[in-house]
């Protein structure tokens, strides 16, 4: 996983999946996802973290994704 490095889209996918914004992907395979689902997941994370909701993986969002945090999902089923 990324630590301190600005997350790329694939890292962001991991992060969003780890913290409940996307359905968990199976460890040994990655699944195809449409842009809308990914965008919605970023928007949800931005809203939860108190960021401007842009749906883009912008720098504020990237910075927040590398902050030290609790490992429990933000979105619990």
């Amino acid at each position: 996983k990324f630590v301190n490095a600005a997350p790329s889209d694939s890292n962001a996918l991991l992060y969003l999946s780890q913290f409940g914004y996307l359905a968990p992907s199976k460890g040994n395979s990655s699944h195809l996802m449409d842009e809308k689902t990914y965008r919605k997941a970023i928007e949800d994370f931005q809203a939860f973290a108190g960021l401007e909701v842009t749906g883009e993986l912008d720098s504020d969002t990237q910075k927040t994704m590398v902050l030290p945090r609790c490992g429990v999902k933000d979105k619990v089923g």
Partner: protein
Amino acid sequence: TGDNRAKRYALQGSRWKVKDLTYKISKYPSKLKRAEVDKEIQRAFDVWTGYTDLTFTPKSGQVHIEIRFEYGEHGDGDPFDGPGGTLAHAYFPVFGGDAHFDASEAWSINSYKGTNLFQVAAHEFGHSLGLSHSDVRQALMAPFYRGYDPVFDLDTDDIEGIQALYGKKTMKTGPRFGDDDDQDGGFDGSHDVPSKTPSSADHSLCDDPKFDTIFNSAEGYTYVFKGEKYWKLTENSVAPGYPKLISDNWIGLPGNIDASFTYKNGKTYFFKGSKYWRYKGKRVDGLYPKEISEGFTGIPDDLDASMVWSGNGKIYFFKGSKFWRFDPSQRPPVKSTYPKPISNWDGVPNNLNAVFQWTNGYTYFFKDNAYYRFNDRAFAVDATTPAFPRSSAYWWFGC
């Protein structure tokens, strides 16, 4: 669920059916003393005891909540990731309630360095009790670690969340309440400006009304410290039966204190020389004394006075002709623009003895035998008749 949804706590959906819970630490971090970890973990549980009837008792064998410090993959399919990133995780009651901490973090106690064990543990135990993450940024249950906070307290969002699960506190459980032996005729804090009433209690403050520090306790009592002794003030004078010895009541606290204040977390901080102490009621609240430079970075030693200002709830320190503002929610807590001249506080003299916000909401500055009442709106000493400075002996000690 929409973006305009009010921000608040979230309940996972399960909670404990009992309120007297047990816990054990099965695996410790390598770089901290076990006794210190034990103390910090208990303090973290006590955060939740403060607002509910939940109690947490350490024991061996079968317990409700097991605590472990682990590296990397540790058997639950949710591996830790080394320093930074994920610091810890915990399981909701329905999944067992256990809490795991990443052993590769630089866990620290009462320090700006490393990762504060107490704060992270208090957060994780919120999950162990059934709280999910909150999107209220300043709440303890927000997912992001926000750095060491020397004056930590739960946000109202956290309190509402835990009381939604376990109800409000109804009994005196958990950390003992301050056994304030002054429960006798203290005043209720409904105050006018003190009027002159000769007191038969004690006249040493009349003969020499200069004192070291003054503060309101969390219970609303006003105390004056001078040398090894202290007095409790009533509505208009000194309470009978005083002075008493500081060391008899604030165990471990020396005399000749430089400065003090009580913060919104209900704890009282005392400063002397290069050190400070923290008390909850009359009970020391952790391992003290500590260095001022450690817990109040940016604040000098050998202070004259300190207070929480009624105008903005921030903490102010005074020394000589200068003052500093300390904001625990900011990084750094003291801006580089400080110190500033005390003359900014129009009409307040340099080289103060004491300052505090009295229960009537005004801020009072004391120097030698006199005092000044500050008008927050005018940002100046009150221009009233009789004018300030006024005699402390007459107006505060009933002489």
